[in-house]
């Protein structure tokens, strides 16, 4: 509680203190601007040629000011990387208080054709980001590396939440962001690119990629593309995220950072570890064959011993080196990033009963207090080699490897709210989750002549995930001193997803015939192989003297398999599966200027999908194997009207799809966190029509004001809903198509700088709706207490899963180039959204509005060497993540002993998680 109230204010206070120093009168001032674009050149240096003490660095809006200049003649030098330096002579007279002098610098001429190669340094700045947004053919938000560096974020997932219209779903076990929801469209409706190439996911069920696997430091800029053009893959309805990795610089560049930090959670409680070394990557059936009868002693127990520790500090390190060789023709960059962190959460969770109480009232099986201790180790390695064969041909090869290892201990105390009310269960679970993504792309760009251009990519990618020996120890008791040992289940899951893909684009720019016209056509082909493995072993406690076994320690616990075959695990089941998918696509588009100020990009894309799956289930099993094939014709048109040089009006239309997850179409059947989970082989892809309208104003280089509307019509949206198909005791979570949904909204973005201050804010309003059947449970005639209970259905309209009505970001920046100080305070507000759709009327789980506040700073330590100290403080408000059912039950009113944490007679708090604050302090060195 102490942190919660004091820390943000402390930071704001410091913030104010530091900046008040620089507010004083000036004598010589003005702006330093690009001579061609008039854009401010933040960071340009204005210095007295004869007295190095008199200097200033241009601020975010390009302004500088130098105080207390003596009267007389002065020569100032104005310089900026990539621009021709200028000398300015000024005569200062005694009676003049203020001299205003604006300087226009000319960019250095670039000798080679390949502008792209040499413009990279700029790409990491916010100027270039704004330029990209302004000049793009479609709707784009760009976050450059420099902004990421200065932001409080350390993973790409956390960076994403700063983008307008994006919310990030957090994991319950650490509070780290993981998946992005773009404009209210759930993670399934978005895809992830690395350097423009789609990558496979290590997720065991779905296509979407966990964004927390990417360390933020490795990227050059992050694009969120909200309107697809025909040359992009067409399976995003919310948007696409592109991680552009760092490219070889034009001179030797070495960048080293190192930082250490801590999470406040572990100042108050210990972190629980288990012995990871005993965890077998392979299940007994994989090690000894599927006919092997497993003995209870084949399972290690050391991963069920949880040791309280005070963890080492979190460590983040990154190293990057790049240079160009052979007359700048060969560029190489190698980047490496490693993050090791200890995080966790304290959570209150309720487990709903499969069937509500009569009147469709919320009913609960139990309540749990969970403490998570999560160690994460994140590794990113990236290497790019580009080679300019000659003026007209370049080749590049890049390799990227990402690894995220998670070791999660969960201690839960469960109190029954139904059968045996008040009894407690203690559960201790250890989980090892290893995820990897590898991507290798060979790319060529060729100018056949001055009108015809060709580029191609050959891609090999693979994603893996292992979840070996997930196991939970459980004991129950009416009397906490004599707990009774319960059964135990060991689970093994792993999957691989491998892509081979080729892309080819041909563009023709007949400049002499039609000005500003480009005709582009191309295609792609991808062959995917996915394999999934699942096995679980369930053991029961052995009865001792015909009485239940008391639990003392795991060393004394005795388990046995009950029933023949139980010791084989579940070696053959529908969760073991293979999928192959072939996607081929062709497109043609034309970009031209129809009127003087009207740009048009129009085209069509055709995508063909063929998916086949197979499971080792017996032939009698319905859905042992299956396939889906479909073709989509996806037209798109993007209009840009240049009101002025700095203002655009945009209107976009595009058609897109979202394919079901690979696992979702397998008739799988697994036990999930709360409910059993089940596949749906009859699932269809979602198809959407999207319209965007946007006004853009770019007052200055890093500045922008954007305002826009969007509307989406989605046929066959896919959502998870509870069904009951496997007998009465189990509700199952099953993906299903739900008619037609609509999604509309409004976005507003502003980035504005006032001298050393900057404000970056965005707000998105989203309203989606989807109509589905939900079940009710009550008496046939509710007035007649002797009438039978019955289960019925009603049609209910609600927002789509994950869609928050209001999303707002506000960052306040302070940038003093002269003293080399950057400060940033960033807040994110996310409105309420459905986190879990219930099959029952009125019992959806709602994620309640949440505000988070983060702070970061960076200070240059020396003018001679490029060394900075930086700090990041996250989750300053330590705001709990609260989930509610927006329906009450008189039995669980506030103050009820049954269900603590309640504060309202109109809703029920069903989940509440607290993640703690985390701090990071470190150094950055750039050569």
């Amino acid at each position: 509680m102490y942190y919660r109230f004091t820390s943000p204010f402390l930071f704001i206070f410091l913030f104010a203190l530091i900046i008040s120093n620089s507010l004083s009168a000036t004598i010589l001032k003005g702006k330093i601007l690009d001579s061609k674009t008039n854009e401010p050149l933040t960071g340009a240096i204005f210095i007295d040629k004869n007295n190095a003490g008199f200097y200033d660095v241009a601020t975010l809006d390009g302004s500088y000011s130098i105080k207390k200049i003596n009267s007389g003649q002065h020569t100032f030098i104005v310089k900026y990387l990539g621009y021709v330096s200028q000398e300015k002579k000024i005569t200062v007279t005694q009676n003049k208080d203020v001299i205003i002098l604006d300087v226009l610098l000319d960019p250095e001429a670039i000798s080679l054709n390949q502008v792209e190669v040499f413009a990279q340094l700029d790409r990491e700045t916010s100027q270039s980001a704004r330029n990209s947004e302004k000049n793009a053919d479609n709707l784009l938000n760009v976050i450059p590396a420099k902004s990421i560096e200065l932001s409080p974020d350390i993973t790409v997932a956390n960076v994403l939440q700063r983008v307008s219209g994006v919310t990030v779903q957090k994991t319950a076990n650490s509070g780290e962001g993981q998946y992005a929801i773009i404009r209210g469209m759930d993670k399934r409706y978005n895809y992830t690119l690395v350097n423009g190439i789609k990558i496979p996911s290590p997720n065991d069920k779905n296509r979407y990629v966990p964004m927390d696997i990417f360390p933020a430091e490795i990227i050059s800029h992050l694009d969120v593309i909200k309107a697809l053009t025909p040359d992009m893959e067409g399976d995003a309805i919310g948007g696409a995220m592109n991680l552009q990795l760092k490219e070889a610089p034009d001179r030797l560049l070495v960048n080293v950072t190192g930082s250490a930090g801590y999470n406040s959670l572990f100042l108050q409680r210990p972190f629980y570890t288990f012995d990871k070394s005993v965890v077998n990557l392979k299940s007994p059936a994989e090690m000894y064959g599927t006919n092997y009868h497993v003995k209870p002693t084949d399972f290690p127990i050391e991963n069920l011993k949880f040791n309280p520790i005070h963890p080492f500090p979190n460590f983040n390190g990154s190293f990057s080196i790049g240079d160009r060789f052979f007359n700048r023709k060969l560029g190489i960059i190698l980047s490496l990033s490693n993050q090791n962190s200890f995080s966790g959460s304290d959570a209150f969770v309720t487990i709903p009963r499969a069937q509500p109480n009569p009147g469709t009232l919320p009913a609960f099986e139990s309540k749990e207090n969970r403490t998570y201790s999560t160690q994460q180790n994140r590794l990113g390695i990236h290497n790019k080699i580009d080679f300019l064969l000659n003026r007209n041909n370049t080749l590049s090869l890049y390799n990227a490897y990402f690894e995220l290892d998670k070791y999660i201990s969960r201690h839960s105390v469960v109190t029954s709210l139904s059968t045996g009310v008040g009894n407690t269960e203690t559960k201790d679970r250890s989980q090892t989750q290893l995820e990897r993504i590898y991507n290798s792309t060979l790319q060529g760009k060729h100018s056949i002549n001055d009108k015809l251009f060709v580029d191609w990519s050959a891609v090999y990618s693979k994603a893996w995930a292992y979840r070996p020996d997930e196991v939970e120890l459980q004991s129950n008791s009416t009397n906490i001193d004599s707990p009774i040992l319960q059964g135990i289940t060991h689970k093994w899951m792993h999957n691989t997803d491998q892509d081979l893909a080729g892309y080819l684009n041909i563009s023709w720019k007949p400049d002499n015939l039609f000005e500003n016209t480009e005709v582009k056509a191309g295609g792609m082909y991808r062959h995917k192989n996915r394999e999934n493995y699942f096995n679980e072993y369930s053991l029961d406690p052995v009865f001792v003297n015909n009485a239940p076994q008391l639990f003392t320690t795991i060393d004394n616990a005795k388990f046995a398999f009950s029933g023949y075959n139980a010791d084989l695990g579940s070696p053959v089941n529908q969760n073991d599966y293979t999928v192959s998918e072939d996607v081929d696509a062709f497109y043609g588009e034309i970009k031209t200027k129809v009127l003087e100020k009207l740009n048009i990009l129009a085209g069509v894309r055709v995508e063909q999908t063929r998916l086949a799956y197979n499971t080792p289930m017996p032939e009698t099993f319905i859905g042992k194997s299956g396939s889906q094939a479909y073709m989509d014709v996806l037209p798109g048109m993007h209009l840009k009207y240049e009101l002025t040089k700095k203002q655009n009006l945009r209107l976009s239309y595009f058609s897109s799809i979202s394919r079901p997850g690979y696992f979702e179409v397998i008739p799988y059947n697994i036990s999930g966190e709360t409910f059993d989970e089940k596949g749906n082989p009859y699932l269809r892809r979602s198809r959407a029509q999207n319209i965007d309208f946007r006004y853009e104003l770019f007052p200055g280089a890093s500045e922008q004001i954007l305002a826009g509307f969007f509307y989406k019509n989605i046929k066959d949206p896919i959502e998870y809903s509870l069904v009951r198909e496997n007998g009465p005791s189990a509700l199952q979570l099953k993906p299903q198509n739900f008619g037609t949904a609509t999604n509309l909204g409004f976005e507003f973005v502003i980035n504005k700088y006032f001298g050393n201050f900057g404000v970056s804010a965005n707000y998105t309003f989203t309203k989606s709706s989807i109509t589905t059947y939900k079940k009710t449970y009550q008496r046939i005639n509710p007035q007649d207490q002797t009438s039978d209970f019955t289960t019925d259905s009603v049609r209910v309209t609600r927002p789509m899963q994950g869609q928050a009505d209001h999303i707002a970001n506000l960052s306040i920046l302070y940038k003093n180039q002269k003293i080399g100080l950057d400060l940033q305070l960033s807040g994110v507000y996310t409105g309420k959204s459905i986190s879990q759709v219930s099959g029952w009327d009125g019992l959806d789980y709602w994620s309640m509005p949440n505000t988070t506040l983060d702070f970061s700073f960076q200070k240059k330590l020396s003018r001679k060497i490029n060394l900075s100290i930086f700090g990041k403080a996250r989750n300053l408000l330590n705001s709990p993540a609260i989930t509610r059912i927006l329906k009450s039950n008189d039995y669980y009113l506030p103050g009820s002993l049954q269900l603590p944490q309640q504060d309202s007679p109109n809703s029920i708090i069903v989940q509440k998680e607290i993640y703690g604050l985390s701090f990071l302090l470190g150094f950055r060195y750039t050569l």
Partner: protein
Amino acid sequence: MKSKIISFSALALFVGSMLTSCTPDQNTVSTPPIQIGQSVSDASPLSGSVKGTMLSGKTYTIGDDVTVNAGDTLLLQSGVTVKVGRGKTILVKGVLISLGSKTQPNFIGPDKTFTKTDAVGYSSAADSAFIGYWTGINCEPSCSLLELKWTHVDYTGANFGATFFPTKGKAGDGSFGIFFQNSTGDFIMEDSWMYGSIDDAIRVSTGRIHVMRNTFEKCGFTGGDGLNVKSGSVGDIAYNLFVGGATNSSKASNKGGVGPQTNVNMYNNTYISGGYRQKDPTGRGGSINYEEGAKGKAFNNLMVNCRAGVRIHNNPAADVVNMSYGYNYTYGDSLRVMNNVYPVMPTSTVTIPQSTDIPAYTALLSNPNYQQAYLYTIVGGVCPNIVQPYDGSAYVKVGNPMFVNFQLPMTGISRLSDVSAVGSFNFRLQSGSPAIGKGTADASKIVPLNATLVTNDKFKPTEVTLPGVDMGCYQSNGSGNQH
């Protein structure tokens, strides 16, 4: 009208007792054995789809999993033995009928002989009854009739293997002894035996049921019920003998949202030492259990040394306002048993003590905390006012029901849970038993629901035994359980 019913049932009772107590004239006319379709060959082990008739006196081996396909019927004449291979399944998509008889019962069990280890106090961990040898009779929702008469179903509870399991199941899932799941289908089980299971011996997800005069022994290994019926189950559970069930012996719940509301009558059952083999004994019952929207009537049951008496669950609440019960007889050797006739924490209940129960807890009858107005108060679908602990010490070892061969108070054993099978015991009542004549046959209180809709005379329930005035499953007039 009411008096008419009473007089009619009194007449029926009179006629009934006349029929059984007097020695009737013997007049037996043989009927041809019932045959459907072709006879099943016993020449080689069966596998794959089976249909037709298994002939009297023959032994059939199920070498691999078998299926009775939808539209097909498999009929067992009397005196048939079916030996099932280890881990194998009988899957019924059509109809399965086993017509054993008193003189020639049928056996469906392992293809291997186990020595029954029914000695009192035998270690359950070593007991062959809990071997879980095969995966039982699994009826798919398309099965319209499962009928077992005079049939033994033994040693079930294996996990499903890699190659064969019911729709929606998976390899590695545990099994029930009998699994029935058709709300418009009939499950008829008469005069049969269930011996040894790992989980529930019988699970009825939904269906019309008639379960009468059977014997259940050693049902559930470290948990599981003898007979567990869920939503859409309607019918009678009567005159059964349950010995040594792991958790509940007979349980009804309306969980599931399938078919009509669960409505099950449980009358004239005998429950011996139920509820002690629970690995999670923190809240469950030990004899009769109604929960989660189920309703029904429970009368004339005899409970001896069970972990808990009739349990009307408060949360998830049974359809308490539409429940009726009484005339239930409890005997307990220990104070713990007699303090749980109306179960108390951790087995939370709202069972109302009845003046007709034996023993009648007179102190509770006048206490407002044990009466309907208080216990049946419903808040948000839950009955928050549960039965609070009371003192049953006055009733310990009181009212010995005087079984023919089962000494009470139990002597020479260390735990009430040590009794889990009939063995050489005989749970019929001696003529001087205080449990005789204390029940009710009043049709205004309890009549069979007689819910099954089989029309073919050959396959109808042989007898829908009406409630009897002697407590438990054996009537002194010879009716009731025939084992």
